[in-house]
């Protein structure tokens, strides 16, 4: 198990190194001379003279070989220095950190909402296959995968904020503000998760232990909850890990509609503002978060499933 764990940690580290190289390349790939672009932004848009540019590049080591520049940059990044935003001049690390917290909050709320709906629905669908719940789960999954969530968000605001007046239409600050964006991201997820829970549970049903349980007179519902469900935890956890990556894809769009100050909106804004240091910061943070998440899911799977504990 220790070896397997080490293996996963090493992989996550290698992934992060690759992401960091991409992030480093991002500022260097930027159209135009990197030094000149950085200097222009420091000088509030005035074009620097050639001597000023040469001095700036010397002082900031932009004439050094790229690997050296990369190592120096990596050192700064590890020390928490992600540079400054072209747009606001604020430190990128601070901005990205605040936005990350908001996105994690929204993502976790969406995931929680989706699981709260999907698990009971999926289990019920597996128990009564072909019944109304099963059909509803199928329909939800089909719709959830087909409705563009920016469109859904527009309609949901009209319904829940304007017509019913239940929830605020945008912004953040209270729990009520989380509900609507989480609902939009969560709905589509819940369909996928419910369908998966249903199919993995259904696959377990023909197995011997289920037949044994039934023969012993264990009821269908307790059998499902106590015996079948735990055995589906490994694939379900793997799916949740996979979906966590998809959550952010949904968040990118939804945060913009709901003016939710998260990482997704920051990224879209930075791209439209050509704010390369912020784009770079977003990439690095996403890399860390997802490599970490993936590692966590792997470790959780090892802990849950004794069969995997020794393997991998």
């Amino acid at each position: 198990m220790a070896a397997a764990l080490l293996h996963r940690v090493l992989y996550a580290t290698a992934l992060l190194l690759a992401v960091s190289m991409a992030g480093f390349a991002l500022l260097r790939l930027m159209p135009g001379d990197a030094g000149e672009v950085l200097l222009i932004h420091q000088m509030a848009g005035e074009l620097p003279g050639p001597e000023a540019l040469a001095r700036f590049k010397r002082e900031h080591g932009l004439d050094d070989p790229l690997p050296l520049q990369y190592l120096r940059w990596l050192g700064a990044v590890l020390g928490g220095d992600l540079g400054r935003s072209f747009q606001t001049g604020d430190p990128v690390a601070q901005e990205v950190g605040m936005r990350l917290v908001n996105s994690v909050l929204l993502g976790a709320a969406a995931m929680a909402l989706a699981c709260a709906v999907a698990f009971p629905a999926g289990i019920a669908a597996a128990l009564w296959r072909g019944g109304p719940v099963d059909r509803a789960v199928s329909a939800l999954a089909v719709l959830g995968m087909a409705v563009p969530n920016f469109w859904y968000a527009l309609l949901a605001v009209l319904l829940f904020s304007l017509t019913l007046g239940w929830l605020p239409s945008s912004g953040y600050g209270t729990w009520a503000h989380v509900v609507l964006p989480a609902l939009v991201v969560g709905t589509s997820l819940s369909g996928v998760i419910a369908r998966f829970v249903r199919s993995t549970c259904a696959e377990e049903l023909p197995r011997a232990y289920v037949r044994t349980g039934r023969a012993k007179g264990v009821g269908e519902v307790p059998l499902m909850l106590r015996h079948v469900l735990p055995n589906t935890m490994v694939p379900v956890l793997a799916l949740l890990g996979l979906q966590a990556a998809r959550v952010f894809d949904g968040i990118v769009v939804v945060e913009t509609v709901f003016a939710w100050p998260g990482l997704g909106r920051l990224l879209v804004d930075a791209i439209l503002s050509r704010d390369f240091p912020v784009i770079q910061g977003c990439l690095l943070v996403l890399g860390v978060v997802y490599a970490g998440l993936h590692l966590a899911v792997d470790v959780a799977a090892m802990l849950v499933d004794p069969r995997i504990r020794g393997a991998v």
Partner: protein
Amino acid sequence: MAAGGAGSALRLGLAALAVAVLLVGVLPLLAPHDPHRVAFAARLLAPGPEYPLGTDHLGRCVLSRLIHGFRVTPLAALAVVVTALGAGTAVGLAAGSIGGAFDRVVMRVVEGIQILPGLALALIIAGVFGLGLWTVVLALAAVHWTEYARLARTMTLAERAKPYVLGAEALGAPRHRVVLRHVLPNIAAPILVLGTVSLSWAILSFAGLSFLGLGAEPGSTEWGLMIAEARNHMRLHPRLVLAPGLTIVALVIAVNLLGDALQDRAAAGSAGTAHRFVTGKGRTS
């Protein structure tokens, strides 16, 4: 053997392709108006005989724009899928048949890309190389090929373990011949199934990016962009937002149902090898 199932899946795929050609190639010819012609005197008209779905805020025929939209979003999505499918399948086949260190490195890269959030990664790529329709298409393909690489590799390994392929290899057939002759035809069906899944993903992603102003150029008949541009008038003229939205929903459902049907037929033959890879695939945008 997969022949019957895969063959019928291919026939269904071809039928779907014919419908797609009709939608993209022929339907726009039947549009009642030029989708780009502005008529300021005819702004925001209600549906009527002249304009079956009314006109938008610049007096353009909504129905004609929707119909012409079949040439934007689905084609861009198709370009994403074809690029990803081509590159990913090639990489997966190579990894599966060459094996060894090459396989390990390729699969670690694939895994790495799949761990990261795809749409955000695509956005970053497009943002760095300059926004625009084709940059976005390539950026989406650049994160999506991994799905095909993984599937093609697994299928290749599975096929290569089958007796007839082992036999062919034992008889001294060169490995690439074996792959092209035996493996490729048998993995076509599951790849096609995955293609439908990624087509709907690409449609939603592309529409979402255009809605955010990161995809199609303003004025285009892209559906997500039409929704964004109609937002100012959606309260008094909800059809301007509902029509393109419902078109996307209908198209994506159709593509997904096609995918399910393909999967059922393919599974009928090849014992559902594709199943694992296709179910549980999330949606985005």
